């Protein structure tokens, strides 16, 4: 990936949505849309032709209008580790994120279409995923946080503050972004994360994997 430009292939069968997302991407200086597709075969062809740094794709597209985007994302990640995939969805159930992350969350992002419009938020997701990180729409994390309050399980061992930090990890934020979001010092965030990893028995893994593991635990619990 070049240091300056993120080459993007955009796939969505709705011309309206494509136009909107294209406008969003145009507002992000680093991103450059090199091709558009409105079906799974077209997406596959465009990825083969342009070898993009990032694919931004709808979930339901022709031919079957079911889970084309999720299947494409997992296939692209398996074939082209250098290409990130940001999935656009109208579904706010975390279960879709788990389907997407079934083989790991690196280089994958999940953004709700209904939330797109905040350029800064969208830019963060685009950059994170193109750089091989992951990103999950904050609304989905909110759904989980609000549903979780009374449940048992390893996550019940976390303090409310630690749960907030974990939710931010699941969104794909780095320590600096978490510190900004929760109005904490980066050092305090680091301490919380250490405590979370210990409570979730993630001690042995390297930091990136710990973060992914913790995020998946959070999403699936």
């Amino acid at each position, binding site marked *: 990936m070049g240091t300056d430009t993120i080459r993007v292939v955009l796939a969505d069968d709705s011309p*309206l949505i494509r136009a909107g997302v294209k406008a969003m991407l145009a507002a992000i200086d680093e991103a450059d849309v090199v091709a558009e597709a409105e079906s799974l075969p077209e997406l596959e062809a465009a990825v083969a032709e342009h070898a993009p740094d990032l694919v931004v794709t709808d979930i339901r597209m022709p031919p079957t209008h*079911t889970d084309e985007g999720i299947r494409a994302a997992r296939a692209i990640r398996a074939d082209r580790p250098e290409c990130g995939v940001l999935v656009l969805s109208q579904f706010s159930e*975390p279960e879709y994120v788990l389907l997407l992350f079934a083989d790991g969350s690196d280089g994958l992002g999940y953004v709700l279409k209904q939330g797109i419009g905040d350029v800064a938020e969208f830019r963060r997701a685009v950059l994170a995923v193109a750089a091989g990180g992951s990103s999950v729409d904050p609304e989905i994390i909110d759904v989980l946080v609000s549903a979780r309050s009374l449940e048992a399980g390893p996550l019940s061992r976390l303090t409310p503050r630690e749960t907030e930090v974990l939710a931010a990890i699941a969104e794909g934020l780095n320590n600096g972004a978490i510190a900004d979001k929760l109005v904490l010092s980066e050092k305090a965030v680091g301490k919380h994360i250490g405590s979370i990893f210990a409570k979730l028995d993630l001690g042995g893994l390297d930091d990136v994997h710990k973060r992914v593991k913790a995020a998946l635990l959070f999403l699936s619990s």
Partner: protein
Amino acid sequence: MTGLAFYGSPMANQTLITGLGGSRTVGPGVAPIRDFAVLDAISAGIAGVAILIVNLTVVSEPGVYLVPVVMAVLVGALLVARRMVLAGHVIASLALIAASNWATTIVVVGLLPWLLPVMVLTVLMPLVLAIPHLDARALSWFLVGAVATLVAIGLLGIGRDDGGVVDDIADEWELVVIVAGLAGHAAPIGLIVWQANRQHREATEDALDLAAQLSDSRRRLVEAADAERTRIERNLHDGAQQRLISVAMALRLRGDDSLQPLIGEIEGAMDDIRELSHGISPPLLELSGLPAALAAAARRHGSIELDLADVGRHDRGIENAFYFCGLEALQNAAKHAPNSAVSVSLAVVDDRLRLVVSDDGPGFDPTSAAPDSRGMTNMADRLGSIGGDLLISSAPGAGTTITAEVSC
């Protein structure tokens, strides 16, 4: 005192379904009566002729000539009964068959008391013939007639050691005639037995056939409705929802704060459509199966304790039935037991897929009217269409537990 209500068991369905063939002819029809009348007439004719020949050649007893005469009358009556049944007068025809046979037995036993054992069979035949054709009330009159005739021939025949009009008949001839008479009944009795058996088998096959057809058509109706719901959900998703999303996106891109209330309205409309879609057809169910779809549904209904085993994928019909049952149960709990602890569990137990939704709310008395019988009927119908069972267990103050099961 826990009350139980059982809906949708396969046996109950079949019993119900066989009752729905209202347009079909009920009862075995006229053919058995017609055939019996003919065969009985032939037997009586043969018996009359045989007795006539024996009397002409061996016995030569004037009184015996009365027997062929009585037989001839019986044959005539049976042929009339045949015409009557073909004209649709079933009860009258049966009554004539019975009365003519019974009158014949009284005369024959009066003449030849040692023929009593043979005539007992003759008395019983019309009664057995009538069983499948009559209602209980009419049949009881036939029973009275048969018993009265038996009493009459018993009084005439038992205790008499004379030969009746044939005073000096040899014992061996008596035996031959009795055996021949008993054997002669084999044909009409055989006919009744065979026809009754055939009718029973046909009726059972028809009922099973009808049950299978109705269960198929019920399944097809549910499948068609589900396909239609999927289509509607897709139209909402790809139509109205997409348009609203693109409008909201375009408005947000303007970066104009005064548009925020408008965007808020659009977001509200999108939420409404999304909520509507969930109740219509959940795409997550098709994509990921029951545990994920039920988890998402439970989450929308607040904090709910989940124990969802990875039960794998099942038939589309089974997954739909279980999902909508679970949804209905969650909605019932939210409506009738707000603020209670609700739990949902899904597992495969003994090769049966089982979904249990329970709450610790106020419960209800299932022996009186169910609080939301339409919802429960929906659940029972859904499960019935896949041959599953629904068990609703509740009592006032003891919460409500809804269990759905199907073989898998």
